[in-house]
């Protein structure tokens, strides 16, 4: 496989291609839409939606297939950035277009292309108006998210961060539910406040790393990492700015209240993308920028203690609030707060096991919670309600839906043998080595997580079939099966044989832990290199 990839020069073009392919798809859809679409009415019935969704499907399929090569082309033994592409973008400001991957980014890119392909399937019949704009936005969104994972230039990172924000804002605001305007505004303002501060911090860092001779700032990740000179007080403020941007995105307690609203109002694919990928951008930001750039601030006992505390509060709080949600989508949204708390705990516990676990939770949450949102969307399309109490006993009527929902539930509550276990186990085991008390508190949440999801699926799938409206719900169709089967396969595969994934991320995780550990006691970023 590697020989084949080398022969086509895969590593030289793959990363820019991943960013460009969705844009081409989007352009095609827009051009077609300018000619034909926008007649109004139900576009699925009238057939207007057929072309844009097909173009989107083909584009995402190409994107996914092309991205698969990264699985082989990525060399786990090489700790340098791989498949790097580097152009000068705005030379007078020292801004470059630099993209590359490490083990973490590779897995996130694959997760993104995989989920996006399925997300088109999940939109197939649920998006019935303005479908041209919708699919085009979905494609642009993908470029933005992939750009964040790939950026090795801080300014580029910021641009990509904003690029992904705007399509999502529209997706919620236009194709969302009844309270979509409120939800999208909340989403936008929350995220915007955080990211503006991040912009300020990035500019500050770029200036701090400027060339002493020419005075031109530098935003190149590696260079900034080694050479930006900031005092420890400034490091704390800068870390604070990044923290706010990323903590909102994660979302950490108490910055999470945009999430339930955004999830509930977003269309199915919007919720899936939000949960599966966009939340990971927050934790990814901690791994890539906030913690490595300012290890002294991030590992400051007080700051670290607060973040670990908030992570564990989020774990417990999210689970408890999930327990009492009457709306299934909101329940899953709050459960995300809990799951992402595990990621934060893993990152800040700073052991190889806990960081690897955090990465696994990021992937697993993307798969399992994505699958839950797909399933909720599917049943919503049939019954037009997400209220748990509106169902009951439907396992008899929709056995395939029931079987798959049950499997995904087990994955989400971390039953060993499914993917969910691997991440949680590694996070907790790793955290126990440095933070035993917090790890023990977090461990007790496996009880609550079992309670809220099993209680929910009992009230949906089991119990007597006592409502007439539920007696004739059609089971999953072939398209929906085609979405769910790969997800279920991933759940089992990552639970039984996660070693190939762990091996690919090991280098990056170890590097993260060692680098942060080695530099946490230095007063300033970069000084160590300067003194050496």
């Amino acid at each position: 496989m590697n020989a084949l990839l080398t022969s086509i020069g895969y590593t030289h073009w793959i990363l820019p291609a991943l960013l460009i392919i969705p844009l081409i798809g989007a352009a095609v859809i827009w051009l077609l839409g300018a000619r034909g679409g926008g007649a109004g009415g139900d576009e699925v019935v009238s057939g207007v939606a057929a072309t844009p969704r097909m173009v989107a499907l083909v584009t995402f399929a190409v994107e996914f297939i092309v991205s698969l090569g990264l699985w082989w082309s990525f060399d786990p033994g090489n700790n340098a950035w791989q498949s790097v592409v580097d152009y000068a973008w705005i030379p007078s400001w020292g801004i470059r277009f630099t993209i590359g991957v490490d083990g973490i980014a590779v897995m996130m890119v694959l997760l993104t292309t995989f989920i996006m392909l399925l997300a088109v399937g999940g939109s197939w019949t649920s998006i019935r108006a303005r479908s041209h704009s919708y699919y085009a936005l979905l494609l642009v969104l993908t470029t933005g998210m992939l750009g964040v994972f790939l950026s090795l230039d801080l300014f580029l990172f910021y641009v990509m961060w904003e690029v992904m924000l705007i399509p999502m804002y529209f997706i919620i605001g236009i194709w969302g539910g009844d309270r979509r305007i409120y939800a999208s505004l909340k989403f936008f303002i929350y995220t915007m406040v955080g990211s503006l501060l991040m912009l300020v911090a990035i500019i500050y860092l770029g200036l701090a790393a400027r060339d002493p001779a020419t005075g031109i700032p530098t935003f190149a990740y590696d260079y900034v990492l080694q050479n930006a000179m900031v005092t420890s007080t400034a490091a704390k403020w800068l870390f604070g700015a990044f923290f706010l941007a990323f903590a909102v995105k994660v979302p950490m307690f108490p910055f999470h209240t945009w999430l339930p609203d955004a999830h509930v109002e977003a269309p199915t694919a919007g919720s899936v993308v939000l949960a599966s990928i966009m939340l990971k951008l927050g934790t990814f930001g901690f791994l890539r920028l906030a913690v490595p750039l300012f290890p002294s601030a991030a590992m400051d006992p007080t700051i670290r203690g607060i973040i670990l505390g908030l992570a564990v509060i989020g774990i417990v709080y999210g689970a408890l609030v999930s327990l009492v949600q009457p709306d299934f989508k909101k329940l899953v949204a709050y459960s995300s707060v809990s799951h992402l708390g595990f990621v934060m705990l893993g990152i800040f516990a700073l052991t190889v096991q806990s960081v690897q676990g955090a990465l696994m939770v990021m992937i697993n949450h993307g798969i399992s919670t994505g699958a839950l949102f797909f399933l909720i969307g599917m049943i919503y399309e049939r019954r037009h309600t997400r209220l748990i109490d509106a169902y009951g006993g439907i396992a008899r009527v929709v056995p395939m839906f029931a079987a798959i929902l049950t499997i995904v539930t087990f994955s989400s509550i971390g039953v060993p043998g499914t993917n969910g276990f691997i991440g949680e186990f590694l996070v907790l085991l790793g955290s126990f080595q440095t933070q035993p008390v917090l790890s023990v508190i977090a461990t007790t949440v496996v009880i609550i997580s079992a309670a809220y999801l099993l209680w929910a699926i009992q009230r949906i799938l089991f119990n007597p079939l006592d409502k007439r409206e539920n007696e004739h719900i059609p089971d999953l169709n072939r398209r929906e099966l085609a979405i769910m089967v790969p997800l279920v396969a991933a759940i089992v595969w990552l639970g039984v044989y996660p070693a190939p994934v762990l091996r690919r991320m090991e280098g990056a995780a170890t590097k993260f832990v060692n680098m942060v550990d080695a530099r946490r006691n230095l007063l300033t970023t970069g000084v160590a290199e300067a003194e050496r």
Partner: protein
Amino acid sequence: MIPLLQAAATAGTHPLTGTIAEWVWLVPLLPLLGFVINGALSLASVFHAGPGDPALAHGEAHGVDDGGHGHAAAHDDDAHGATGDDHHPVVRHRFAGVASIVGPGVLILSFLLAAAIFLAMRGAGEMTAPFIQRYFSWMPVGDMHIDAAFQLDQLSMMMTLVVTGVGMLIHLFSVGYMQDDPGYPRFFAYLNLFVFFMLVLVLAGNYPLLFIGWEGVGVCSYLLIGFWFSDKVNSDAGKKAFIVNRIGDVGFLIAMFMMFANMHALDFTGVREGAASLPFGGIVVTTICLFLFLGCAGKSAQIPLYTWLPDAMAGPTPVSALIHAATMVTAGVYLIARTNVLFSMAPVAQLVVVIIGALTAIFAASIGLKQWDIKKVLAYSTVSQLGYMFIGVGSGAYVSGLFHLVTHAFFKALLFLGSGSVIFAMHRAYHHTDNHDDAQDMRNMGGLKQYMPVTFWLMWIATLAIAGIPPFAGFFSKDEILGGLFARAQHSTIASASLFGIPGSGWLYFAYLLGLVAAFMTATYMTRMMIYTFHGPNRTGEKERGHLAEAPWIMTGPLVVLGILSAIGGWLNLPEFAPLGRVGALEHWLDPVVGESTARVMAGAGETSASLEYTLVGVAILIAVGGIALAWTRLKPESLVPKREAAPEEGFEKVLVNKYYVDEIYDKTIVEPVVGVSRGLLWRGIDAGLIDGVGVNGSAYLARFVGWIGSQFQSGQLGTYAWVLVAGVLAVLGAFSIR
């Protein structure tokens, strides 16, 4: 890579290399294959793909697009979720034939393979080191290597034989018992999957892999308890079982974290070696053992986590026999035996295990005295007997606990399947007359011995076995537990320890006393169950009586085999005072696994003297006979009336019937406060009230107010906004650059 190479190096010298033992992976894989086939059949028979556009399935388009699929679903094979009360004639499932062959078939093959491996082990002579097979690296992270590895030794072999052997018999029984159930292949799919996970549990070579089996059997238990999920009681019971088990699993997880933190290993060999560096009786090893025991208390239904097991009787009766009596619930006993090295180093933890076991034994037995549901009697009996097993493994008499595990698997499976046979007959009788009375309440039975003689005689064998009448199986194993406990109360490392200021020997004698009283109660409640079910006049009803009949051979066949095993199972480990054959065979077999730890606990003391031993045995027999005699002479089945005419109990009897109100207490003190706080304080209070209400919307109002002030100065609000933004950014930037 390195551990794999080491495995290859050591495996070369193991006596089992090159034998059929290398096929051990196939033992669990066969049931997994059965699950895949039966699961596919089950889904294939009920799945009808929905219409391409689900939104059109409702409203005007309904019926055009979906061509009646929606209606078909309502008539599906598995659609009625036949509960025990389904009196309508049911057509056999269309895949019943295949499922009947695949379901039990894979178990038979699995058992035969296990038996062949057992013979190979016996033929291989003295085998001191476990035979470890590594298949692939499961969780390699940093310096932690967790492999998918199976460990074959005398203990896992014993468990494998019990699981596949008893499992095979119960699968065969189910062919008859479940024959009319619309969910037939689904039942076998779950049952096969259960056996797969149970085998992973007993064959695993490290704790995390064991944990896959541990929670996997919990999943299957959940699915099987709620098998007839259309009844809320059943799905409630399944959920409760899983959640209560999870409380224990937290303990198991923390124990694993502590092992890794202190011994840097999670595989059995590594932990055994790492334990050597820990201080005897130290806080670390004690805490690890106590957390592990919390896991055991959940899985094996000990105080305070036993409440799920009686509810679990909502599942079909073969499930109760296999999962909730013979195999899964004994996993906790297995886990302690597997971790014997650590437990033998932690006398305080051992004391806790023994005391909890003894308290559970007597507590559950007392509840069993007043239950009317035949399966509930057996459920509390199981909880009580598991208590005995924990007395055994907890007191460091590992062989005695495991011995009781095996004999209990025989006689309790027999009792449950026998009760299944009774319930089956009751159902059929009620079915014919369209009666909706409770087919499991003993007040509706009585005098069944003339209608089902085979079941009757076999259940008496099992009753004598569990009551401890020689020479039936339970007598030997229970006697060994109590005898071992007495010996350890006299002299052992546990007796030398102390808990709450009371010396260990005092606790052990106290536990011995509780064990004796519980034995008396056991004999009483079992005899009571037999009298009310089989003796005296029949109370089923005039019309129904004519339809009562013995179960078909596919059900009675397995009963006969279990009856024989319950009668002669004691021969597995005969005591020295009864040399009816080879003495202590099981003890000798398990010696490489638990011998060292047992000796460590005994701290050089020998077993009790012959005269004392005869006295103890005499007391035990007297107690068993006394318990039976009490029930036989005092209970009057003639005065019983059917359930619907019965008056409610009063006084202490009412407390017993209501199981000491433990469920109600848990609900009021734990479940309701958690839900209440989550809803009232966390969600409505903090989330909606504080963060959103005051924080987010508050700042929105503030922003609106500031915006209003701004708008007083200038009308072009958009421009103002942009300028303020830029100014703000510059201000912050400036503040930092000036410093």
